[in-house]
């Protein structure tokens, strides 16, 4: 009951929001309102312009699809805090709305923080498992770090502003000292990287996304991390008109996230973690587009529009496809009770719908034509090529970025082919694995709708560009013009657009007709050739072995450690049992996080020295503080 009301309501509201924001977007409107806040001094300013409307459209569309799927998927939580989960889900959507609609620093901070805290409770829904609690704690720590940084980024300029409205902050940026502005921008960079899961502040994402219920991870990956993208565009471009160095820093972080994410996705063995790493990769590509716009903001007239179109198109399309993939992975998890790529296999036979739609989503997320993420990646590469055609050292930087993004594309293809091939094809890697049943009807409907949109926006990329154009225009740059909805990539005229597909179709038709003319040949099923033995499921490649070649290629980055343990009986010649275990420490964590964590712990234990449990000493502290305050305030 709670499930039907909660998710049904979310679906209806999401649909309404999507409709309303499309109306704002296509009408190129800007609406605003002021409400009395919790404190009289802090009124809540809400404002919707095409940029906010675009993110609300993403939120509305994706939350509708996810809520419909959750009607079926969340059945398993009916006797496991289902009401709480549905309520938090709705509250989370509300918090995201608040953050996207905010038009002053206080409201934005409120929305940002609410998203972080409610997100935490959603992530730790299955808190009986200590692994879930640990992942949730890391998520909360990073989210709080991000919230603290965004507070610095917003409140520093506020010291020079008349009030907290964004318009006032925009004026304050002009006459505040450069040092303070740069400090605020550095804080902003940290905040958005932590929120969006960009390198090097992405450690929480691959841990928190897999442990959350699938419809929550879908929402986290599809929309919540995009709040970081929205924050970058709203605060760095719209308000701060960030200088080029900010763009270069963001570009480096973006490209690094894309590469690291794609690489980890190629070798990880948890299906949902593969998708989480793929989100890091895609966020990196989006940040690269935004960064390119910032870099060229003050120099070239057309490039920022092209790069921003690419980034926003990527944001929209990635949200749709990632929701599909996470719900598909959730259906697999629900059907057989594991997400381990070393145990899964052969699910296409029992779950044909989920398999087919997951394959489509996987091909889309690998930016393959003719699906919806390809136009976005194509635009990003075109923007980089255009930068390469300019002058100066930027041309070399553009080439390096192009190569890095192409490598990301190749790795993403590998990751998705492997995730799909291992999960859905072949035989189960573990003989005792349940055969699984098809996902509930609600999930299938939702996946089908998302896949339909993915194909539609892939075949007609001009439609996506038109949806995004007002949001680019409102920032004051020239958006991309598309003469025809389908003729974005293939040329400008109908003839150009039709030539390729018609040529390919006619060649395939000719081959097919030739096959028909030559008559039917016998087609039969036969055993697999395994050198004369009988096929066993252990003969296939597992998830780990399928990614092994790629892991070896990149072994200088992915430093896998193998630990072999031998358990001896009595003599040292006949080991009773052998166990081997391999783990790949996260490339950034070992070098960057470990020193920070150990420093914090050491500082904490040093600070514990003043806590000796003696109440007289504590009274002395109170007295000393009081004296200090009195002296200080005099």
């Amino acid at each position, binding site marked *: 009951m709670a499930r039907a009301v909660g998710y049904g309501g979310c679906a209806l509201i999401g649909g309404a929001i999507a409709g309303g924001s499309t109306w704002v977007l296509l009408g190129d409107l800007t609406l605003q309102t002021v409400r009395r806040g919790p404190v009289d001094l802090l009124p809540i300013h809400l404002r919707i312009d095409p940029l906010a409307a675009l993110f609300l459209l993403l939120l509305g569309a994706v939350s509708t699809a996810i809520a419909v799927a959750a009607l079926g998927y969340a059945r398993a939580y009916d006797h496991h805090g289902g009401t709480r989960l549905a309520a938090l889900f709705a509250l989370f959507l509300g918090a995201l709305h608040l953050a996207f609609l905010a038009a002053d620093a206080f409201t934005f901070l409120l929305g940002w923080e609410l998203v972080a805290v409610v997100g935490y409770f959603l992530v730790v829904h299955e808190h009986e498992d200590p692994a879930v609690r640990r992942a949730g704690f890391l998520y909360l720590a990073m989210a709080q770090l991000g919230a603290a940084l965004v507070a610095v980024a917003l409140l520093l300029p506020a010291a020079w502003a008349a009030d907290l409205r964004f318009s006032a902050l925009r004026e304050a940026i002009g006459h505040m000292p450069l040092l303070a502005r740069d400090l605020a921008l550095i804080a902003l960079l940290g905040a958005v990287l932590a929120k969006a899961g960009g390198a090097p502040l992405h450690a929480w994402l691959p841990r928190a996304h897999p442990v959350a219920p699938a419809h929550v991870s879908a929402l986290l990956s599809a929309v919540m991390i995009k709040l970081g993208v929205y924050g970058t565009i709203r605060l760095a471009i719209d308000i701060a008109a960030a200088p080029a160095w900010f763009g270069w820093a963001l570009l480096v972080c973006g490209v690094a996230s894309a590469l690291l994410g794609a690489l980890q996705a190629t070798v990880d063995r948890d299906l949902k973690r593969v998708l989480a790493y793929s989100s890091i990769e895609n966020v990196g590509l989006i940040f690269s587009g935004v960064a390119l716009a910032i870099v060229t903001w003050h120099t070239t007239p057309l490039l920022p529009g092209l790069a921003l179109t690419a980034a926003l198109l990527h944001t929209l399309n990635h949200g749709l496809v990632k929701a599909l993939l996470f719900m598909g992975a959730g259906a697999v998890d629900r059907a057989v009770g594991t997400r381990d790529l070393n145990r899964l296999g052969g699910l296409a036979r029992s779950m044909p719908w989920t398999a087919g739609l997951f394959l489509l989503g996987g091909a889309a997320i690998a930016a393959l034509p003719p699906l919806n993420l390809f136009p976005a990646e194509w635009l990003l590469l075109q923007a980089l090529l255009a930068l390469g055609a300019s002058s100066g050292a930027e041309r070399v930087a553009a*080439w390096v970025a192009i190569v890095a993004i192409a490598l990301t594309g*190749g790795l993403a293809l590998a990751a998705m082919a492997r995730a*799909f091939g291992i999960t859905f*094809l072949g035989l189960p890697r573990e003989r005792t694995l349940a055969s699984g049943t098809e996902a509930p009807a609600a999930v299938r409907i939702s996946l089908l709708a998302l896949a339909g949109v993915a194909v539609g926006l892939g075949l007609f990329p001009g439609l996506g560009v038109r949806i995004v154009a007002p949001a680019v225009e409102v920032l004051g740059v020239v958006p991309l013009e598309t003469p025809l909805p389908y003729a974005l990539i293939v040329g400008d005229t109908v003839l150009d657009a039709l030539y390729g597909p018609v040529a390919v179709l006619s060649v395939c038709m000719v081959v097919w007709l030739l096959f028909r003319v030559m008559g039917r*040949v016998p087609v*039969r099923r036969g055993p697999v*050739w395994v050198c004369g033995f009988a096929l066993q499921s252990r003969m296939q490649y597992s998830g780990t072995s399928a990614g092994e070649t790629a892991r070896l290629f990149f072994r200088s980055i992915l430093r896998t450690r193998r630990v072999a343990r031998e358990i001896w009986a009595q003599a040292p010649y006949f080991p009773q049992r052998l166990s081997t275990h391999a783990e790949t420490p996260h490339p950034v964590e070992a070098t960057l996080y470990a020193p920070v964590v150990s420093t914090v712990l050491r500082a904490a234990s040093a600070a514990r020295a003043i806590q000796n449990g003696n109440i007289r000493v504590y009274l002395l502290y109170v007295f000393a503080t009081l004296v200090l305050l009195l002296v200080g305030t005099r």
Partner: protein
Amino acid sequence: MTDGIVSLLLILVAAPFIRGLIQKAKAFFQMRNGPPLLQPYADLWKLVHKGEVIPEPSTFLFTALPWVNFAATVAATTLVPALGVGQVGPGDAIVFAALLALARFALIVAAFDGTSNFTHMGASREMAIGAVIEPALIGCLAGLAIVGGGSGLGAIAESRHLAGPAAFGPAALMILVALILVAQAESGRVPFDNPDTHLELTMVHEGMLLEHSGRSLALLAYAAQIKQAALIVLTGTLLFPVGWGELLPAALAWIVRVVAIALLFACIETANAKLRILRVPQLLVTATAIAGAGVVVGVTLGG
């Protein structure tokens, strides 16, 4: 567009012949007779008339994806400029690479559907090698665009044609050397992969096809030949943008270029052994680095 259609038909017809030519030339260097020049056509003809055996655990993807692989390869081929006759189409370099990636994706998934350790091994290797080929290919094409101007394949070829002798500056030459290496890697030739072997320790592409038979195998084999022909034509066109404009000299130049590059491939294959699989990315990274050095030279010196 005329350019595209003529070029596509030429490649479709000549693709098996180019493979036969390389085999014949290799046999000549090895003092063998080798198979007849037209053997690849006969092989395709034979496969089309054979029955098909589908592995028991496979899904419908096993026979459907060879069509996707074939269609994507043909689609990529439509973008290859060859003759400069009529209007040179947009022939976008990134779409070209992406369509080859789509073909590779279809092939890898079909190999996972093969459910044998050989097909899975081929898939695992192809995934990893493909991930390194893609940046090398796009790096070469983008490098040519940055150094020589023009963003589409047709436009790059045309601007190289118009540049005359200036098209052979140090920057462009470095990138073209890298492109030859990439074309070999992408079409699965020695030293990256060996199309003439079925030895499980070495095979990549052939490993993936091991469970396919009959018409599915004919489609996959023909697609591989088309891809190799398209890459040879593309490399040749970018290397020697001469004989541009009128049909007869253009067709003559086309034939000379294709034969020259095919013979070059045969020479390289005869003189080199296949690399160990872990050495493959090193050679590809070297190729990318040469292209990158070419870009740096082009940006600093111009040309």
